[in-house]
């Protein structure tokens, strides 16, 4: 119902627009009637010429309107009022006159002419809201309900609350005959026409008031004077209707004569007459369309197919046997070369018909593909890179080997000055030895595997930390300069302990009493919470104050950041998706990289938020390292891939290399030289030159330099870790065979 009202509304509003009385809520009626009357006036005036012809305007009309129409026009107004009192005479549409047509002599309805400027629906209407027929709920959340003709916003009229509504229904007598107009967002009283329409629908009458269901039928074919009379006559049929036609006979005889004379051949076969004759089919130009691609031609015969080929083409017995055993589809040639001393002895080729047939099968059954044939030297596809000789120095030979008997050398670390190496194995032995000569200075024995080793990067102190069984031990190497020793001791075990943090951490920092300090015992031990597993990955911040630890189990992904000076540990992540494979501090910015199984996430530690997620496309990340400039990251995976990320460029790898035949275990960028190394389970170490340019336009240059072999693969494990000597282009590598090699340039 509302929709109907809504639709009707514009036309109504038009009529109402000029009427101020309308607002007062008076039962205004007859607006339309006014118009129609004017119409009538117009009609009569305009139809003047016609009216002359039809002096009797009044036909057999059915209502009083007709009488009013028929009456003089001057008292139309009174008539209107009278009409409007009776609901029946209410018209939405202009009233029609019934006249008798001059042509058919039948009464017909004559509607007044429509004057385009006044009568069209939207000409004089002043609907303030001109948004058109759009769903009004679009404006539900807005202060306005649309735009007027000038593009100004039409503000939403104020609407009262429920109480106001109720009061309105009580106060306003018209409230029950008004409906909500979505277009103006107000209640509008319904016009009399609409009320009439509603009433008619409610009662079940025809909504069109002018429709008369009881019209007298018009008799077209029946009735007086229209009876049809059958034209029957009793006259006899003429004779000619019973004798065969003479002219037909003549025509038939003509054909018969022609047949007898042979001019017409009956049952002439169509097939024999339409014998195929070639003609100049290409004389007129062809259609514009391109011809279909011609079928590929079979290859031309080569020397081997000759009846008398050079002898070297003849197959040996073994080749002949192989050819005969092969399936005919797998054969490279469909014939065996044969040699005949003379042409006379050449027999018929027994597969001739079959070969033609195969060719035809190819023509109509084989899918065809157009291929571009590359005519290039395959070596031109190999990228041109500078020669490794021009990129020296890089490690290219093994200078010495250190041995961990009966165990896998799991982790190594090189001191910041490059003179010392600590290495740990799975038996819990940690050895300290000199890089240059490989002499062992001291060894420590712990219970359980050594998971990770890391030398503190600070140069004014000297200690390293190692991860064993849910604990991190800090050890000061022997023979340290006294000043450094005291400084180190003060850093690791200050006399006055810093105040404990506000909220107690599950991590315990334990320092033995100063009396029992010795080189055999760790000076400081961090006890990680229980069931957190072995620490597998250490990463020092470049200032040497923070140590990030990843352990193999436990909550929070097993990541702890330990601050040495404050003796405080914190877990940076409450919860982390996926198992953490490794963590890294950004060398210059307060950023932190976390590698989970498939993604590398980059966090800003200062702002405590995620910066970006890198997707290397590796199924299981094993290791990663960041370039000293901090703009490039390499990520290695167990699926043999190495991804080079340009952090400025994209979250997808800049380059993906796959050259190891087994999983990549370890990666390391040299801190000063443009080198990086990767080690793998295939027992090889690959050295790359990696030059990074300062300008953003130049891509980093990656040149493979050298493959170092020498580690043995033991139980499927090869080289477990590689570390560069920070001062020299030397590489230290530890293998599953218990050997630790130093590679020098």
């Amino acid at each position, binding site marked *: 119902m509302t929709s109907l009202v809504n639709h009707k509304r514009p036309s109504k509003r038009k009529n109402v627009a000029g009427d101020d009385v309308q607002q007062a809520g008076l039962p205004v009626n007859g607006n339309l009637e006014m118009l129609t009357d004017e119409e009538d006036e117009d009609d009569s005036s305009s139809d003047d010429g016609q009216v002359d012809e039809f002096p009797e305007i009044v036909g057999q009309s059915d209502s009083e309107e007709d009488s009013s129409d028929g009456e003089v026009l001057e008292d139309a107004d009174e008539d209107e009022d009278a009409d409007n009192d009776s609901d029946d005479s209410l018209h939405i549409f202009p009233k029609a006159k019934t006249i008798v047509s001059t042509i058919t002599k039948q009464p017909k309805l004559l509607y007044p002419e429509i004057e385009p400027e006044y009568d069209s629906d939207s000409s004089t209407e002043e609907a303030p809201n001109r948004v058109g027929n759009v769903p009004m709920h679009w404006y539900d959340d807005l202060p306005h309900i649309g735009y007027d003709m000038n593009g100004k916003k039409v503000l939403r009229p104020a609407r009262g609350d429920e109480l106001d509504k109720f009061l309105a229904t009580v106060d306003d007598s018209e409230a029950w005959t008004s409906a909500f107009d979505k277009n103006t967002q107000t209640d509008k009283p319904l016009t009399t026409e609409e009320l009439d329409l509603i009433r008619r629908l409610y009662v079940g009458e025809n909504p069109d008031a002018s429709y008369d269901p009881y019209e007298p039928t018009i008799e077209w074919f029946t009735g007086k004077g229209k009876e049809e009379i059958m034209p029957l006559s009793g006259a006899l049929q003429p004779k000619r209707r019973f004798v065969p036609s003479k002219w037909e006979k003549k025509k038939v005889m003509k054909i018969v004569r022609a047949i007898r004379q042979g001019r017409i051949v009956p049952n002439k076969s169509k097939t024999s007459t339409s014998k195929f004759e070639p003609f100049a089919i290409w004389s007129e130009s062809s259609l514009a369309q391109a*011809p279909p691609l011609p079928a590929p031609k079979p290859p031309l015969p080569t020397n081997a197919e000759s009846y008398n*080929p050079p002898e070297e083409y003849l197959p040996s017995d073994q080749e002949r046997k192989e050819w005969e055993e092969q399936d005919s589809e797998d054969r490279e040639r469909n014939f065996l070369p044969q040699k005949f001393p003379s042409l006379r002895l050449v027999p018929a080729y027994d597969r001739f018909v079959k070969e033609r047939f195969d060719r035809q099968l190819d023509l109509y059954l084989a899918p065809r593909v157009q291929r571009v044939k590359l005519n290039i030297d395959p070596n031109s596809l190999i990228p041109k890179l500078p020669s490794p000789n021009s990129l020296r120095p890089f490690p290219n030979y093994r200078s010495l080997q250190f041995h961990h008997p009966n165990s896998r050398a799991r982790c190594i670390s090189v001191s910041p000055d490059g003179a010392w190496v600590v290495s740990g194995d799975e038996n819990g032995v940690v050895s300290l030895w000199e890089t240059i000569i490989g002499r062992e200075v001291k060894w420590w024995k712990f219970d359980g595997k050594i998971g990770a080793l890391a030398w503190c990067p600070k140069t004014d102190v000297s200690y390293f930390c190692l991860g064993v069984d849910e604990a991190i031990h800090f050890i000061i190497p022997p023979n340290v300069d006294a000043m450094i020793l005291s400084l180190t001791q003060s850093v690791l075990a200050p006399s006055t302990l810093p105040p404990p943090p506000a909220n107690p951490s599950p991590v315990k920092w334990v320092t033995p009493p100063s009396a029992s300090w010795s080189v055999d015992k760790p000076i400081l031990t961090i006890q990680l919470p229980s069931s957190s597993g072995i620490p597998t990955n250490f990463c020092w911040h470049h200032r040497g104050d923070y140590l990030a630890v990843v352990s193999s189990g436990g909550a929070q992904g097993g990541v702890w950041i330990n601050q040495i000076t404050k003796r405080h540990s914190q877990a940076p992540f409450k919860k982390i998706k996926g198992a953490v494979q490794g963590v890294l501090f950004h060398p210059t910015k307060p950023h932190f990289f976390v590698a989970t199984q498939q993604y590398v996430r980059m966090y800003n530690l200062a702002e405590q938020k995620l910066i970006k997620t890198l997707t290397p496309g590796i199924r299981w990340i094993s290791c990663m390292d960041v370039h000293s400039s901090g703009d490039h990251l390499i990520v290695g995976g167990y699926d043999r891939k190495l991804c080079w990320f340009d952090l400025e460029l994209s979250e997808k790898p800049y380059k993906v290399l796959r050259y190891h035949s087994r999983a990549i275990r370890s990666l390391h960028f040299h801190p000063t030289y443009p080198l990086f190394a990767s080690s793998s389970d295939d027992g090889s170490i690959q050295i790359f030159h990696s030059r990074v340019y300062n300008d953003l336009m130049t891509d980093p240059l990656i040149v493979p330099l050298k493959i170092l072999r020498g580690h043995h693969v033991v139980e499927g494990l090869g080289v477990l870790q590689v570390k560069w000597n920070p001062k020299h282009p030397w590489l230290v590598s530890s293998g599953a065979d218990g050997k630790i090699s130093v590679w020098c340039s």
Partner: protein
Amino acid sequence: MGKLKVKGKAGAAKNFTTRSLAVKKLQCSLADFRRLCILKGIFPREPRNKKKANKGSSAPTTFYYTKDIAYLAHEPILKKLREHKAFAKKLSRALGRGEWSSAKSLEDNKPIYRLDHIIKERYPTFIDAVRDIDDALCMVFLFSSLPSDGRLPKEVVENCAKLVAEWQLYILHSKSLRKVFLSIKGAYYQAEVADQTVTWLAPYQFTQNVPADVDLRVMLTFLELYQTLLSFVFFKIYTDAGLVYPPPLDIRKDEGAAGINALTLQDSSRQPLAQQSTALAKESLSITAKEVRRTIKSINAQTTSETVDIEMAEEKPLEPEAEEEFIPHSSTKPQEAASELPTFLSLSSLPQTMSTNLFAPYTFWLSRETSRSIFEFTVRSFGGRMGWPGSSGGGSPFDETDPSITHVIMDRPVVERKNEDSAQQELRSRRKYIQPQWIIDCINAGKILLEEPYGQGKTLPPHLSPFGEYEGAYVPAHEGAGEDAAELIEEDEEEDEAEADEQSEAQDREMATAVASKDPAALRAAELAAEAAGLEYGDFEAKVKQANKKRSKKVSETSVEVAEQDMNKMMMSNKQRKLYEKMKYSQGKKNSERLKLEERKKDLLRQKRKGTS
């Protein structure tokens, strides 16, 4: 928000139709569909993603372009095929009821289809058609030699034979044969027609048997199309050459197995008198062009006659050949007729090399054991005259005793002739007896070769393909070159021997090889040899070191480069690497093939040397 994409409404799912769907859409049987595809040249396509094209199913199916099928649906032949189906039903019913007369009238009004619109569609220009007649010619040559039986109607074979004769006649007339190759499968011919090379294979003249696994219906459908195509092409080339098509057939000669000679070439300008008079009127205008051409020809003849072998010296005056209606004079006539409008085609065919008249000075006699179909065609298309005994068919222009015969093509071993009179001996001494391969090798070489290696009863030099091989393939050396190779090998071995004489060098060499092989046994042997030669151990060691150094230097230089390249391969993208590996694979395959042949050649030469020495 964009329009929602519905699966299976666009892309591959719409562009491809499976074969069964196509048959369903066209409402015809599979056999009819096959026939339509063959005639219209529609073939299956391979979608990039089979699953997408087949509504998610990965079952093996054949795909066609949907547009191709829509194109077939509008084919008038499809309607004819449906009519034919109705006709077959009616006929079988009439036959079943024994209504013979209605069956006959049905048979007389059998629906037939024409293929000319298809020819026009598939080959919009004449060049397109000529480019694609290779297969058609092969088929027609094959079917002209097949026995007709229940499956293969006689008319088809006859028509094929007719087309073969017409084609050969045209090639003879236009002298457009270029290359011939006798293979174990048959004779390959290559001709140049309308600037396109046309290659066809004709089987040797034996009865071919159709194997059981060959579907003759498919072949006959192809043949249907090919016959129509060829007759249109022949019509065009004959009329372009100013000849009447089809050339009139002399039935009496044909029955005497005259082959090509049964057909007569007729100038089309000779037929309508009115046309001739206009042609005559035009001839006065075209005279200058004609003369220019003639002079060019004569110049060509002079220049090439110098290059031809010695045999040209004993040129004999040509006899007027009255019997052969078409060879010399008819070949010039149509050119005159065509000279009215020098088209690009006629101009480009003008500077024909003299190799087309290679055999012009000679007269050949074909012995009865050689195939007339091959040699009559080849010799005559290169200007030679050819006679043959009555056993090879009628229509020979001269008989065996003709004194003009210069060459006899013989393909049987030499037999001692005892009862020969002097006249016969005289005749024998004047003629050259050659094996058939000489003809073909002369044609392929473009010059007259020496007859001596091809003489009767001689072991023939190998017959090589004139079409060449792929680039980098093994090139079999000619006989002369083969000797060179043998010499090379000999030299090699001689050198070895010479070196063996000079002891110290030999030792060096041995040492080098020993070092190279890194075989302790070899090294030990070398050491022993040195000791035997009286060399001290210290010297020996020094030498070993030297050799080692030399070698390692050499090896390291090359290996370093190789290793560097190997390492650079790491930096290739996946696509490049795959391409590289593919190329390397095919290269390696070609190389190994070549090496194998070279190796075998060397072996053969060695064996030969052993056999002789």
